[in-house]
C-alpha cells in the first residue's frame, strides 16, 4: 500500500479536527446570543 494513503488519513483527521474546533465555539456563541435575545423579547410587554 502506498504511504500516501497514510498521509491522506493523517491530514484528513487534522482537517476534521480543525473544522470541529472552528465551528463548535461559533455555534455555541450564536446559541447563547440567541437565547439572550429571546429572553429579552419574552420579557418585553406586548
Amino acid at each position, binding site marked *: 500500500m502506498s504511504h500516501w494513503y497514510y498521509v491522506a488519513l*493523517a491530514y484528513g483527521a*487534522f482537517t476534521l479536527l480543525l473544522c470541529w*474546533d472552528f465551528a463548535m465555539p461559533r455555534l455555541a456563541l450564536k446559541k447563547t446570543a440567541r437565547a*439572550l435575545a429571546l429572553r429579552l423579547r419574552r420579557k418585553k410587554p406586548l
Partner: protein
Amino acid sequence: MNKIILWFNQTGSPARFDVFATRWAKPSFILAFLLLAIGIYGALLSVPADYKQGESFRILYIHVPAAWMSLSIFVIMALQSAIALVWRIKVCELIAMASAPVGAMFTAVTLISGAVWGKPTWGTWWTWDPRLTSELVLLFLYLGVMGLYSAIDDRRAAARAAGFLAIIGMVNVPIVHFAVTWWNTLHQGETIRLIGPSKMDSSMLWPLLTLVVATKLWYIGSVLVRARVLNLQQETQKQWAIERYGDTP
C-alpha cells in the same frame, strides 16, 4: 498608572474582554488559515520525500506542531489557572477553561497522526512507549479538566476546581517532554531545536516552521472565540451583554 498595567486592568473587565476577543479572533484565524495553506502546500507538494521514510515523513509536518501545541497549551492553562486561583481574575479563568478543548484537539491530532505515521514506519498503530503513553495521559488530563468544569453548576467554583486539576496535571508535562531522554524509547529524540542546529535539513524545515506559527495563531483565534462564549454564558444578565447581543436575530 503604568500604561501596560492599565491595559491589563481594562481588558480584565468582561465587557472590554468581549470587544478585545471579537477584534483579534478574526485576524488570528485569517493569518492561521493563510499559513496553514502555505505550510501544507510545502509539506505535501514542495519538499522531496525522505530517503528512508518515503512519503510517510510528511505526516510529521502536522504531528510535530500539534505535539508542541499540546504541551504549551497545557502550560498556559495551568499558568492562567494559577493566576486565577491567586488573584481571582475572571478573564484568566475563562482563558484557562477555553484552552482545554483546543489543547485536547491538538493532543488528539498528535496521537492520531503519530499512530498513522507509526503503522508504515514501526509496523504498528500503537505501542505502550513512554512518550506515547504520557501523551495519552495528557489527553485524559485535558478531558478531565473539561469534564470537571462542566460537572459543577457554579461557573467560578467549576473553574477553580478544574484549574486546580490543571496545575496538578503540570507534573505530566516534563514527563512527556523528557520521556525520550529519561527512558529507552521507540520514539525518536529531538530533531528540531529552537536553539542550536537542527537535525533536519533547512530545505525541509520551512513548512514545519510555517505550520508551527500557524498552529499558534490558530490557538489564539480559537481560545478568544471560546473565551467569548464562556464570558457571555456567565454575563447574560449584565447590561453590556444585553446591549451588545440583545438584538441577535
